[in-house]
């Protein structure tokens, strides 16, 4: 069971007696219903960037001024009742490493360029509707990256005497970069690694990531520890929290590990990625008994190899190389077989 729509009622009485007389009691008015709510997803992604997992989930694009983008989103009513769904675009910001969609009335240039085919849907239980979003970037648009989100919002039914409703909304993020040329590609660097112990004594490893590219990035990744005391290995550990960084921003990517781990030293291998951009760094670290340990500068692994593996290009190169080698071998092997035949016939 789930509830869609909660209105907060706060009762303030001038005296305890009045509260009792008037029957005022704090509470929420809720419209209870079952099912899985109302959800949204992106339907179209650019053909040219389909290998990038970010473009499968968000509208991530880099376009020139004057470009018109069309993308569809699909809204599904997976609840057990009919719903009125409000569809709109709001601005968004990157705050403290998180992508945060602003309130419904918040606008920026991107939202003024974006129009939606429908703004209000009456959706029966179990139905789905595709909504076309058109982003018309004006020819005089200034260069830079802007953020927004397309929302599907469900509000509780207005109650008698109240016009205030509660909203639950799910959104598709928009990261739109406007640039005359190809723009500065997405990139980031891992500056330093700091082992420490948190307030509960758990070992943590903080990696300082800097967005050195021209586009916002969503960093996630994992950590492996090897060559520890008595040859111990541990991991992979998943990053605790995905970090979103605007161009030029720096932020910490923190891994919290098990308190059963000895202090080390460990050979740490950190793999961080945002879409197709991957960075792998290694360093020898030692967790302190308490507080903050020694910060170390990591060594970066060859980036080209990682990028090639992630894009599947390496697979193609290996297959092509195998073909060439086999063909050469066949050419050199054929005369030998003929000679053997000749010998046998003698």
């Amino acid at each position, binding site marked *: 069971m789930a509830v869609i729509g909660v209105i907060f009622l*706060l009762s303030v009485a001038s005296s305890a007696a009045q509260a009792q007389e008037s029957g005022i009691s704090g509470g929420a008015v809720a419209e209870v219903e079952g099912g899985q709510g109302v959800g949204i997803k992106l339907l179209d*992604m650019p053909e040219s960037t389909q290998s990038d997992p970010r473009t499968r989930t968000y509208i991530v694009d880099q376009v020139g001024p004057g470009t018109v983008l069309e993308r569809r989103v699909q809204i599904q009513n*997976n609840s057990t009742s009919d719903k009125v769904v409000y569809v709109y675009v709001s601005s968004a910001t990157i705050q403290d490493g998180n992508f945060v969609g602003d309130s419904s009335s918040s606008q920026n240039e991107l939202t003024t360029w974006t129009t939606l085919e429908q703004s209000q849907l009456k959706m029966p239980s179990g139905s789905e509707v595709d909504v076309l979003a058109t982003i018309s970037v004006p020819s005089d648009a200034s260069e830079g990256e802007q953020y927004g989100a397309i929302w599907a919002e469900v509000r509780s039914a207005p109650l008698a005497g109240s016009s205030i409703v509660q909203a639950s909304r799910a959104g598709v993020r928009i990261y739109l970069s406007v640039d005359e040329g190809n723009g500065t590609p997405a990139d980031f660097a891992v500056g330093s690694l700091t082992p420490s112990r948190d307030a509960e004594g758990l070992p943590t490893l903080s990696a300082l990531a800097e967005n050195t590219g021209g586009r916002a990035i969503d960093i996630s990744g994992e950590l492996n520890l090897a060559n520890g005391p008595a040859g111990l290995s541990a991991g992979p550990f*998943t990053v605790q*929290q995905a970090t979103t960084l605007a161009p030029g921003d720096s932020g910490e990517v923190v891994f919290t590990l098990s308190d059963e781990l000895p202090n080390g030293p460990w050979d740490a291998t950190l793999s961080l990625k945002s879409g197709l951009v991957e960075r792998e760094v290694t360093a020898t670290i030692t967790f302190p008994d308490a507080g903050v340990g020694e910060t170390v500068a990591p060594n970066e692994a060859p980036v080209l190899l990682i990028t090639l593996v992630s894009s599947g290009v390496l697979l193609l190169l290996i297959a092509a190389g195998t073909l060439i080698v086999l063909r050469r071998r066949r050419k050199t092997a054929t005369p030998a077989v003929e000679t053997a035949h000749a010998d046998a016939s003698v």
Partner: protein
Amino acid sequence: MRKSTFAALALMGSVALVGAAVTPAMAATTDTTIATVAVTGGVLTMVAPETAALTAIVSSSAPQTASAELTGVQVIDDRASIAIWTATATLSAFVPTNGSTTVIPLTTATYVPDAAVVTVSPTTVVTPSSVTDLTDPETVQVSAGGTSSNTATWGAKVEVTVPALALADIYTATLTHSVS
């Protein structure tokens, strides 16, 4: 000859692997300047709390706190892609039902989420974050990257500070949960 056939098949297999995740959009829109393909996968859903009840308070010469325990706030991520999401909460201004002029500030309203219970893909890490000002949407839970669907369910405590000598009334506000 057999080896080269095998190698050719391996090459085709590599290509198929790289391009397996997407299918051409059958209902591709026209008049677009950028070619697109269809995305597979499910939807991202925000489900509002099952329960929420602000405690009633009696006006006093000192500021007081009204609180509400939320249960069953839920994010369902069936996109089966990079499972990164940010959930936020915000509160609209409290509106008095009977015309009271007391303003209940949102800048001191707090939202303290519990650790989320993650199901479907329990390896997905979801980190809670407390909020001390609910004027604008602020992050309350963030998921880390993954490739599987996940469902995160949490409870939270919302507290509102009612100023001293507040006028008796019933004040209403809207609590909004978002996920993207």
